[in-house]
């Protein structure tokens, strides 16, 4: 549920005003209480002074009546004295003296136990006619006889003063809130204006204009951060679009070459009549190209299914050594044919949990590459060893003594259709998908695949896999 205005600006302004109002209101409350407390203290102070004075002025007449020498007006708090009330009682509670201003009212009935014995502590009292007063009591001896003197000031003027300043503060509050509304609106508008610019720019970016970027004004603030995050997203989008474009053009190219050769064979053979043997030759050579095409399309379908996450992993636990022997049993003959030697350096007997046929394909592709790119009579080293970090994993590496991979190609060798030599005439080099499949297979098992140059000029391809 959302209340209030629809725009973020409106909501923020409203919140601003609301929060500002609460803060000011609390502030005004505190200030008023403080003022009341201070005025009460002043009142108490004045009463204590007044009490001392009054005690000096009280005397007993010869007839035994209690009298006040004279009215006393030079008190600094004179304006508060207007309502000064004075009452004196004998210890048994009889009223011995009552000032004129009391007009016959009493200041709080019979004295309670211990009244006036300790200090001049004040207390609030409500008189019979509803007047609120602040009262102090003091036990005092006049000419040897004990009396209880009560002195009270009406709190009316004090409350009035507090009310006036509270009123002023509330009016100020009203103006402050209006001002806060305007200022908040302006402030929020200013803060949000880059957001609007960003929205407008983002709106203009389409698939064909992915290279556009959102302007970043202050890279350190939140909006700048957001702009950079969006730019990062655009960057990644652009890269994957580029990859897709490249992939499409590569696929087209790879498919075009065999298609073109089929076409030319057909065209040549149809130019004149041929003998059945010659036709057989023609059809056979076309079939070879079709084979090539079929293999490539199959591989691409596998990759496509892998990309779409449709390739299930049928995981089993098996010995990596056995798998390695199996793979070398298959492709070893290609190395033999080129009189290459395969050296094996195997440490322990690590087991892995993986999709055997997928991992097999990965190792096959890497070994096949090593055999292809090593010269005749060269040597290939296959190493299997436990790793220290990440622990509980195993590294399989294949080192060849081929031409190596130039610096600028190292990152791309695992890309689809990427070939270090752009020489497409090499029949053996396949479609450039082998390493891409190997990478996918290894990563699907939570492993890592990579390349590093060997001590000689050859290459080392390694895969690191978690052990079972």
């Amino acid at each position, binding site marked *: 549920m959302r209340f209030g205005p629809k725009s973020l600006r409106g909501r923020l302004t409203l919140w601003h005003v609301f929060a500002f109002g609460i803060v000011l209101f609390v502030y005004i409350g505190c200030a008023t209480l403080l003022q009341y407390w201070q005025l009460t203290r002043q009142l108490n102070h004045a009463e204590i002074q007044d009490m001392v004075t009054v005690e000096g002025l009280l005397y007993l007449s010869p007839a035994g009546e209690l009298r006040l020498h004279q009215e006393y007006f030079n008190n600094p708090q004179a304006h508060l004295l207007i309502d000064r009330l004075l009452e004196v009682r004998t210890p048994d509670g009889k009223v011995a003296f009552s000032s004129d201003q009391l007009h016959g009212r009493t200041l709080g009935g019979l004295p309670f136990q211990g009244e006036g014995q300790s200090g001049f502590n004040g207390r609030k009292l409500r008189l019979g006619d509803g007047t609120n007063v602040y009262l102090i009591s003091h036990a005092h001896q006049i000419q040897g006889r004990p009396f209880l003197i009560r002195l009270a000031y009406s709190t009316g003027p004090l409350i009035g003063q507090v009310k006036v300043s509270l009123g002023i503060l509330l009016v100020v509050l009203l103006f402050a809130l209006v001002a806060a509304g305007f200022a908040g609106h302006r402030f929020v508008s200013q803060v949000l204006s880059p957001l609007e610019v960003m929205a407008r720019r983002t709106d203009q970016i389409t698939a064909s204009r992915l290279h556009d970027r959102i302007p970043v004004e202050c890279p350190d603030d939140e909006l700048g951060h957001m702009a950079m995050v969006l730019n990062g997203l655009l960057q990644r989008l652009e890269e994957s679009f580029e990859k897709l474009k490249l992939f499409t053009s590569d696929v087209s190219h790879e498919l075009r070459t065999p298609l073109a050769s089929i076409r030319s064979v057909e065209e040549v053979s149809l130019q004149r009549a041929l003998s059945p043997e010659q036709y057989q*030759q023609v059809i056979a*050579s076309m079939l070879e190209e079709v084979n090539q095409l079929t293999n490539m399309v199959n591989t691409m379908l596998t990759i496509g299914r892998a990309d779409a996450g449709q390739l299930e992993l049928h995981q089993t636990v098996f010995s990596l050594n056995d798998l390695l022997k199996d793979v070398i049993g298959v492709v070893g003959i290609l190395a033999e044919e080129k009189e290459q030697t395969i050296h094996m350096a195997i440490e322990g007997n690590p087991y892995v949990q993986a999709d055997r046929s997928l991992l097999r394909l990965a190792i096959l592709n890497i070994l096949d590459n090593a055999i292809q790119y090593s010269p005749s009579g060269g040597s290939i080293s296959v190493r299997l060893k436990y790793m220290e970090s990440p622990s509980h994993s195993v590294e399989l590496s294949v080192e060849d003594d081929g031409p190596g991979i130039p610096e600028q190609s190292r990152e791309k060798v695992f890309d689809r259709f990427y070939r270090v030599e752009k020489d497409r005439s090499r029949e053996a080099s396949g479609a450039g998908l082998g390493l891409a499949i190997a990478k996918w297979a290894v990563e699907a098992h939570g492993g890592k695949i990579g390349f590093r140059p060997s001590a000689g000029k050859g290459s080392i391809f390694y895969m690191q896999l978690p052990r079972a």
Partner: protein
Amino acid sequence: MKPFAFPELLARIRSLFRRGHPAATVQMHIADLSFDSNGRSVSRAGKLLDLTSREFDLLEYFLINQGSVVSREMLVRDVWKETMRYTSLDNVIDVQVGRLRRKIDAAFSTKLLHTVRGVGSVLREESHE
């Protein structure tokens, strides 16, 4: 249960039948070549040939399919028993078939293992064209 392709099932059954045969076959012949699957020995014109086990399996498969063309596809499935066909395996097969040909044909004037371009190879006596 995973859905399966009916043609694939048929192919698998067929290959089982094919595989079922050689166990019973003890000896096979073509021209002057004799093949003993129990003793795992092959000789031609009385001379014992030294074959690796893969070459032996390959020859056995060719013998069973005597006279008909054996494609790479068939070899991938029945001799190498791979589930997937890929370019390097095609190379492996070509090399392996080439070696077998050298061993059984090189020293003899009558060639038995013939390449059918684009399709595969066939084991037959050249007597009939």
